[in-house]
């Protein structure tokens, strides 16, 4: 078995897409000869050249807009944002142009925006955010978030082959810490489908991204539902799992009021009320920006111990 890191799986996904489809090209800041801020695109400039791996000025609104225009004209651009925090800059381009164009005109915009998100690298308020929740509920966008090595590859390949704009949130703390079997080249993770990462009886931990490994490490008899796609949300998978376990805990790295939790609770309140033996629980950081100092960030982020405590509280209800 060949083992690769989560970062290498993303790179393999980019490489495969570039090899398989002439229309695919990458654009972003410092992704060329430098290989990207995290090294995800290292080597791709040498293999594919400056026309396929395009360095941009520091202008996220501009190059996301340009990716939209290129997608309109039949290309399949993959944008890299250096940090997901910077997605606030092209927010307008994403929600105004990318999201609404197909519905208004029938124009397809096959476009992927990769955004390294999340804490654990002492990034502080501007380099550690989990802003994926801003795009949940936006008609026309798809939001995916791999929590495994396989999905880092499979979701990326699926996103590139999708005809809608896809926001691909990859967790930067998993880049080098998470290892797994190298995915087969033709492996694809379907967009819009959650995955039962582990079966269990006593509760369902509903999570994604960095939460998946944390939940899988629990010693309790719990089911782990990896959402994989945050929007459109796989309501059926949530309800099917909770029908089995009767208890639900949402684990996310986004602050309590952000992320996916509100939408999951909405599904449970509307359609899962009678399935539940206990109020749905939430384990998430407080509603503050991500702090810098190790003592603060370590207390801010969910840990194995804090998750276990939250789960035990739910199980004791």
């Amino acid at each position, binding site marked *: 078995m060949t083992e690769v890191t989560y970062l290498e799986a993303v790179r393999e996904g980019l490489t495969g897409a570039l090899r398989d489809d002439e229309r695919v090209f990458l654009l972003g800041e410092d992704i060329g000869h430098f290989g990207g801020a995290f090294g995800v695109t290292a080597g791709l400039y040498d293999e594919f050249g400056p026309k396929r791996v395009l360095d941009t000025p520091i202008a996220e609104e501009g190059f996301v807009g*340009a990716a939209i*225009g*290129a997608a309109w004209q039949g290309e399949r651009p993959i944008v890299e944002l250096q940090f997901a925090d910077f997605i606030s800059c092209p927010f307008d*381009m994403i929600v105004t142009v990318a999201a609404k*164009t*197909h*519905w208004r005109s029938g*124009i397809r915009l096959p476009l992927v925006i990769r955004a390294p998100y999340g804490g654990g690298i002492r990034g502080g308020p501007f380099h550690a955010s989990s802003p994926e929740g801003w795009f949940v509920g936006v008609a026309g966008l798809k939001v995916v978030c791999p929590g495994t090595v396989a999905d880092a590859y499979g979701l990326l390949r699926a996103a590139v082959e999708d005809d*809608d704009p896809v926001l691909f949130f990859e967790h930067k703390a998993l880049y080098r810490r998470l290892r797994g079997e190298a995915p087969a080249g033709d492996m694809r993770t379907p967009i819009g489908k959650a995955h039962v990462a582990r079966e269990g009886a006593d509760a369902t931990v509903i999570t994604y991204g960095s939460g998946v490994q944390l939940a899988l490490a629990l010693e309790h008899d719990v089911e782990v539902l990896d959402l994989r796609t945050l929007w459109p949300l796989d309501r059926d998978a949530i309800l099917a799992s909770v029908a089995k376990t009767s208890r639900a805990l949402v684990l996310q790295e986004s602050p309590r009021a952000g992320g996916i939790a509100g939408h999951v609770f909405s599904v449970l309140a509307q359609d899962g009320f009678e399935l539940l033996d206990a109020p749905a629980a939430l384990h998430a950081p407080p509603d503050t920006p991500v702090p810098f100092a190790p003592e603060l960030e370590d207390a801010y982020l969910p840990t194995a111990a804090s998750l276990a405590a939250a789960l035990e509280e739910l199980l004791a209800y």
Partner: protein
Amino acid sequence: MLTEVPVETRVELFRLICLQRAFEDRVMALYRQGRISGSVYTGRGQEAVAAAAGLALGPDDVVAPLNRELATHFARGVTPADVFRNFLGRGDGPTQGRDGNMHFGVPAKGVFPLVSMLGDLCPVIVGAALAFKRRREPRVAMTFLGEGAFSVGDTHEGLNLAGVWHVPAVFVLQSNGWSYSTPASAQMVNTNLAERIRGGWSIPAERVDGTDALATYEAIRAAVERARSGEGPQAVECVTLRGHGHAAHDDARYVSAELRASFPDPLERLAAQIEDADAIRQAAAEEVAAALAEAEAAPAPDPAQLERGVYAMPV
């Protein structure tokens, strides 16, 4: 310069200008009668720019018009009935009633739909031009920028990208004096946009009288051909005066009579250089009347279809 524009092009420019004028006069009347929901934006006084830009493009080129460039749509082959369908929110219109007035595109004609956020379409057009350059296709992508958009960061990011990537993008600058009720002098210190484009982004930019349809056409056509032949992004600043308010509810009382008197009507100006001008005007009025009748008879949108098309590939 006058003699360089062939007579058939001159006539076509005039026809497009008359069509925009007749359409917008009719749609303003409909608005005042309460027969148009939402709002109405016109390009009164700027029709020559819209017509010239549209005619300067080739059949395989693409364009993102704003809300004062109706004649650009017509030059691409969008019909007055299609546009009325959008104003009236008809189910078989370009947006199927999902968007109104000038907020529409016609993909089959290479027209990207207008969004209200000024400046957004500047980088989008640069991206379309990048696609053409990547594939070595001799095609050009065009959009328009007014003084309002010139205050928006997206515009500057787009112009910068166009220059750095050296793509076949053409920017038509609509200097009509006003951004809603705010004069250009309150938007920027140097209101000579062509000078700023040349100096700031090293993009060639000519400044023309946008009420002179022939000069405007010549300048934009030359810019389009330079872009097509690999000379990189181009710009043309067209100086006009916005003839109506920002939208139909705005009577533009803040524009003085003296200022208005200092700008000729582009339609009358070209009419003086066209044979059979009256017949062309008359034909435009008749085409608009027939188009309105056609659009009014079109079906209403079906609310049951509203959620279709949110995604190209629904999950």
